[in-house]
């Protein structure tokens, strides 16, 4: 019997309520002219700018994941495939488009049929471009693409930043036109200031996982906190939520409470989770009392544990910096390797789980090389498993369980008989992350 792992404190109830309130606002938008809404992507989102206009974000990714977690993703996926989408297209897109066509929503409440704006914040994922192009085509809503230069050098150049800042100003002009409201710089600065505070709190939560035992699971539990992070980060409600979340988890830490009675393994998780089998998957780790102390997926929206904050003194520039350099999706593969390496060292993890997700080439293309780097070059115990984040047809339960069990058996053995890892000199690091 798997150990019960999921932490259900106040924050769990509060996040649920916050997300319901959000869907409530979207339902209100569906029946009238207000509030204005804007579809955008989770990764490197510029929700601060929307907040400045009082626009409510719609995150199709959040809808898709909610749908999958509730075991409702297959129908819309099949509807999209019927239209001509391929078996190998990202299933997030298929689920979203299928829902759009069939009027399905994750909570049963209505979503606006035509958002005020479809805003594609392109941060690395090329699928985003196609996805939102299609959404705009099918809904008839206006489309704008913010082109964010991919982080192909150690730091963004001043031209990269200037390019994004200029587009943000163009977006402001477009939003003024679409909403009939004047841009309020003070409200924008306030939103940015709220984000900075939410981010500080979120970062402190993530650093709590450095202690042994970690008071929460930085993969499975982090996902609970991620909804509010995207939807409410730039508001006082977000700040309040993360203040309470930190206090609650700090209390657990002070009491020496971990995720399990005894924390046996500490892991770094790479790749999105298999939402259609979220609970089953989690239980496979709970069985071994293995806690994720860090995860790359939880940095999709932003990479705050290494020190970056939005800055009300330079609101446009800091929004641009966040979009270019401070979310995992717009950072290159080797920067992701470095991020994981820092987690391994600073969060004191025993091994790496690489979850290859068929839908998402952004994450998964080249993960075999990542496995090679961690297991061969660094000598870190590494497990590579495959499934999908949205499509329930790609989860091989028995096989996944067997591989996870075998991995932990070996890990247990190697923890009992530690071998020195090959040392990698600092100079050979691939692309160094900015220091906190």
């Amino acid at each position: 019997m798997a150990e019960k792992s999921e932490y259900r404190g106040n924050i769990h109830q509060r996040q649920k309520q916050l997300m319901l309130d959000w869907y409530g606002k979207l339902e209100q938008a569906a029946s009238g002219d207000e509030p204005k809404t804007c579809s955008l992507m989770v990764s490197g989102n510029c929700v601060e700018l929307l907040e400045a206009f009082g626009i409510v974000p719609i995150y199709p990714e959040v809808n898709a994941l909610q749908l999958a977690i509730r075991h409702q993703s297959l129908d819309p996926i099949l509807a999209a495939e019927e239209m001509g989408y391929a078996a190998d297209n990202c299933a997030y897109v298929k689920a979203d488009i299928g829902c759009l066509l069939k009027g399905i929503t994750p909570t049963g409440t209505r979503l606006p049929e035509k958002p005020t704006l479809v805003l594609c914040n392109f941060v690395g994922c090329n699928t985003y471009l196609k996805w939102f192009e299609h959404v705009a085509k099918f809904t008839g809503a206006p489309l704008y693409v913010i082109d964010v230069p991919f982080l192909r050098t150690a730091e963004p150049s001043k031209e990269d930043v200037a390019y994004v800042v200029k587009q943000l100003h163009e977006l402001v002009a477009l939003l003024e036109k679409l909403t009939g409201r004047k841009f309020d710089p003070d409200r924008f600065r306030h939103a940015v200031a709220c984000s900075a505070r939410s981010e500080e709190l979120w970062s402190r939560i993530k650093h709590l996982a450095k202690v042994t035992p970690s008071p929460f699971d930085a993969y499975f539990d982090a996902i609970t906190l991620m909804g509010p992070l995207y939807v409410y980060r730039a508001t006082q409600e977000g700040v309040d939520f993360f203040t309470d979340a930190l206090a609650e988890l700090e209390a657990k830490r002070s009491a020496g409470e971990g995720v399990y009675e005894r924390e046996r393994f500490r892991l770094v998780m790479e790749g999105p989770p298999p939402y259609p089998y979220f609970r089953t998957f989690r239980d496979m780790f709970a069985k071994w009392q293995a806690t994720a102390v860090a995860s790359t997926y939880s940095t999709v929206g932003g990479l705050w544990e290494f020190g970056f904050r939005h800055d009300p003194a330079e609101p446009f520039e800091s929004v641009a910096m966040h979009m270019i350099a401070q979310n995992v999706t717009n950072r290159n593969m080797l920067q992701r390797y470095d991020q994981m390496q820092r987690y391994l060292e600073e969060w004191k993890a025993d091994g790496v789980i690489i979850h290859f997700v068929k839908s998402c080439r952004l994450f998964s293309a080249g993960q075999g090389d990542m496995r090679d780097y961690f297991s061969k070059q660094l000598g870190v115990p590494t497990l590579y498993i495959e499934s999908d984040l949205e499509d329930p047809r790609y989860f091989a339960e028995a096989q996944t369980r067997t591989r996870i069990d075998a991995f932990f058996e070996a890990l247990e053995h190697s923890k009992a008989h530690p071998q020195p890892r090959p040392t990698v000199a600092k100079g050979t690091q691939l692309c160094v992350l900015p220091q906190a």
Partner: protein
Amino acid sequence: MLASDIERTFDRYRDLLEDLSFPEVRRWKEADPRRKAVGFFPVYAPVEIIHAAGMLPVGLAGAGDRLDIQHADARFGSFICSIIKTTLELGMTGHLEPFEGLLFSSICDSARNLAFVMKRNFPQKYIDFLHLPHNPSSPASVDFLAAEYRRLIGQLERIGGDYSEEKLRAGIALFNRQRELVRELYAIRAAAPHLLRAWECYVAVRVGNVLPVEEHIALLEQVLAAAPRRDAKKRDSLRVVIEGSFCEQPPLEVIRLIEDAGCDIVEDDFTLAQRWFTEDVPAVGDPVHALAEAYVNRSVYSSVRHDFRKPRWLGLAEKIKASQADAVIFLMAKFCEPAYFDYVPFKQQVELMGLPHLALEYEEKLFTFERLRTEVETFVESLVFD
């Protein structure tokens, strides 16, 4: 060139394209030990800039069925297109040794990650990733791209390139000429497909990937002069547009079998690198800026170039009208996500125009063609007997 020699020319260039040792690149480099070559992954690269740095730009196009994948499968697992793996395999088996540099760009997620995996595995090479802008509606995108090109120039100089603005202007004029000739070739294809079979046109264009531009221009001029004098009979065929083969290339046999089944391929999106601009790039003024401006405003539509001012399905519609096509064949590389996505709006557009269409999938390493042949034959028959 005599009209009768033309066949042999095509055969020779086909063989050259199939040779994974890049003999023409080696030959070019042997003339001077300081010469360097830069390979670029499809679809587009600013070849003019590489040329202006005194280097040979070479379009990489995977390895077809001529390389056994031994190492790359473990690095790029399931659900990834073949060209990603064959390109990595080419590197891991020493085939990319003639290249001092490799360029990638923002076409898709797999290609993007490949750039950085290559960087880790071949630290001695210059490997770079160009971000080509996705928001041409913004006036800032030209300045951004010009800065990106200047960054590239700096990197090419670092590895020994000898760049000058003068040379870039001259290079732009040369590549303009190359593209002009390719346009003429396609004009023959559209007007008199029997004078130039699709596979021949394909080979003549694609060989521009591996030849110095001056030589490619000479070759195209010869083909253009010889083609009208060929003794070939008109066929009664279906005029088709091929869409979806912009990156990984179909085996030549697939192009042939489509023709053999009774189709004249009058337009396509094969090897777009030699056809990238719809009109000449101005060779005056600041050439870096001119090249950037051309990318933003004068590029062909493609599944991997994004311009929300004008949806690419309208680009396809124009192509169909201009080439007076009767049907569209979507010929897509397996696991090519940009092609898969575009298939949906493209198909809707073609249906709106009332044209028949067929979707086919291939892999560059395909070697049995019976299933594809049957599908195309059935499609053609259904239209002929309609």
